[in-house]
């Protein structure tokens, strides 16, 4: 059992949780992720490590409430516990002095994983640019925190309600066009954003890393649910990644494989909605509804 030390709501659909996990905090590095399972009947979901504090023994995760599991997770409060919390998983980002500048593009909830990478790159002596993008102002979070770990922060929103009114590739192009050596680029966010960042970077010949958020089950390399195609080779995002050379990623595979379970995800969401129709439902009632909703399984002898 892992205790939630603190729970915050960052935006209308994004929550933060600080989890008491000293062993993981001791080993965590930027770029890695955890897998958590809220309860006995819950699925295992991967979340990137947004922050860690080795002294306090805590790991911070940030998640967008997009489906049943994340919405259910969002109902937890400080003091509640999470049944399973596994990590740190995946390979850490390559942190070093790149020479010149590094540019980190963070889209939406991608702000979370970018933060520890930016901090580590800054500590390593790099000149760090961060481009933070979101649909609208209310979806931007951690602006101050990010400001503290980078040299220049560029904000943009699709509707112009905060920062520039543009998509992230616009400031990215401008930075790349400026006569400065670009040591490295990171793009972390929705797959489609990462794909277009790679396209933007291509003519400038700058190296770009992306963090692929594939569907995962175990997160330890035993199933291949998270497989992606990089440079024509099959790779497992959980053990070979999640960061890969963006110029070599087959985005068609990445985008298609995200939809593997869309039908079931909708079904789970409908069930969850039915369970949460009224304002307050006690745990017992919700458990009863769960039972009612399960597919009828004929048993032996039926």
């Amino acid at each position: 059992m892992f205790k939630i030390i603190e729970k915050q709501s960052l935006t209308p659909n994004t929550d933060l949780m600080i989890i008491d996990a000293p062993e993981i905090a001791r080993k965590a590095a930027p770029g890695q992720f955890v897998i958590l399972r809220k309860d006995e009947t819950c699925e295992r979901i991967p979340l990137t490590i947004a922050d860690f504090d080795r002294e306090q023994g805590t790991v911070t995760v940030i998640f967008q409430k997009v489906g049943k599991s994340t919405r259910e997770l969002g109902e937890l409060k400080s003091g509640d516990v999470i049944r399973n919390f596994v990590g740190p998983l995946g390979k850490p980002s390559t942190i070093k002095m790149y020479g010149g500048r590094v540019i980190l593009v963070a889209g939406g909830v991608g702000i979370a994983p970018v933060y520890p990478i930016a901090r580590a790159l800054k500590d390593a002596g790099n000149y760090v640019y961060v481009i933070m993008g979101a649909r609208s102002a209310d979806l931007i979070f951690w602006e101050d925190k990010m400001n503290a770990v980078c040299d220049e922060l560029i904000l943009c929103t699709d509707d112009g309600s905060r920062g520039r009114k543009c998509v992230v590739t616009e400031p990215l192009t401008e930075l790349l066009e400026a006569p400065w050596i670009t040591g490295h680029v990171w793009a972390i966010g929705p797959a489609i954003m990462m794909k277009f960042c790679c396209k933007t970077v291509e003519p400038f010949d700058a190296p770009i890393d992306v963090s692929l958020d594939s569907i995962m089950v175990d997160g330890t390399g035993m199933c291949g649910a998270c497989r992606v195609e990089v440079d024509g080779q099959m790779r497992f995002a959980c053990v070979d990644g999640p960061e890969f050379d963006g110029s070599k990623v087959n985005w068609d595979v990445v985008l298609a494989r995200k939809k593997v379970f869309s039908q079931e995800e909708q079904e789970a969401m409908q069930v969850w909605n039915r369970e949460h129709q009224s304002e307050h439902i006690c745990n017992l009632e919700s458990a009863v509804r769960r039972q009612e909703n399960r597919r009828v399984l004929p048993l032996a002898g039926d």
Partner: protein
Amino acid sequence: MTEVNLTVKERMSIPRHEMPLQNPVVRAHNFSEVALGYDLETAMAEAERCLQCKNTPCIQGCPVQVPINRFIMALRAGDLAKAAQIIKEKNNLPAVSGRVCPQESQCESRCTLGLKGRAVAIGRLERFVADWDLQHSQDQIEKAPATGKRVAVIGSGPAGLTCAADLARQGHSVEVFEALHEPGGVLIYGIPEFRLPKEIVRKEVAYVERLGVKVHLDCVAGKLYTVDELLHEQGFDAVFMGTGAGLPVFMNIPGINAIGVYSANEFLTRINLMKGFRFPEYDTPVHVGKFIAVVGAGNVAMDAARCALRMCGLHQDGKGSQKPEVHVVYRRSREEVPARAEEVEHAEDEGVQFDFLTNPVEILVNVSNVVTGMRCVRMQLGEPDASGRRSPVEIPGSEFVLPVDTVIMALGTRANPLTSEAAPAVERSPRGNILVDASNGRTDEPGVWAGGDVVTGAATVISAMGAGKRAAADIDAWLREKDKDNSRLPLAV
């Protein structure tokens, strides 16, 4: 109970007792156990068939040397507790091995009765005794006095659990580190409920824990800790690596990343560990179509095919919609099938179809990258190769399309790459398997042992248990020897 005195001839004339099974038509729609087990009367009657051979060939066939003659004798005398105790002298997970061992090629293959007729059903008897024990056990656990030595076991599969239990019995303090959220390894995530109920696995793990073994879940070797840290920072005296062969092998053919293509590991993990067959009561989804191809013909392929069949059964609306089809696609012929004979029979009885001498060459997809079919080629067996196996050769011009919407790859597994992150210094084969002295499981690193699938590649539950047992004996001897050496050293002032 009265002693029955039968002559050898009388014993040999008793027919082998069949195991009652769930009706194939019914069981194809549920995940309840297929083989229902003997009742006391049948078990006692089957036990009467044993000739109590002096040279006990059956024991030679058992990878962990269960005293088969003695436990059958105790069963015959009606002393089930004693029978269980005798089995547990050698086997820490008898309810598991009684169910999943390929007895026909192990203990039962050596049974004297098998030479002229049918072998004693040793596996079924072991299962009967173990199941009785799980219900009635008083757990009179006998343990050696505490040695003060600490051993870390990485992986809680059959190898790790066996090694841990044996070491705990010897008085060592044992801690098991498991990456998943439940202990048992392949017993939990791989072998389906209808072949090995998870309740049985949990009870057997609980028995190992009662021996004093501490199990840490959610601990990924190579990420949270390394073997080096366990030995030099956390103060363990020895480490046993039983991390298995969990890395799935995919075919290098077009369409392998399409929607609807699973590794058997993913498919089985979703169903067994995550209870995907009870979606949406359990959150983890498993998407199964109506025409499923399982590629490969090992036990894992049989498990995947039979799970797929059941998943289709659960999803059927019963209104005369098209009947689901599950095909096992195998490039060799029936004779070469590596799966347990009984599993193949059960799969066939349930309606799984076998396409022998068939090999996939491409997975066909639609514009959304969803599987629509599998292009296959017919094979014929060529000349025997160096290993004596006849290798399959394509028949030119024999290509055809199998119309499927789901493909499950069950082509075997390899050692997980995380194993090398956990123990970078330990010597491994080019395929990633850990190299050990087969007699005792020692690696080239002092204080580090390994056993099970991580050494042999995907093999059987019982061979992993055997490896765990050999390593435990050697670790115990090594720790005691080390103690002697230390006591000879002068005390520090």
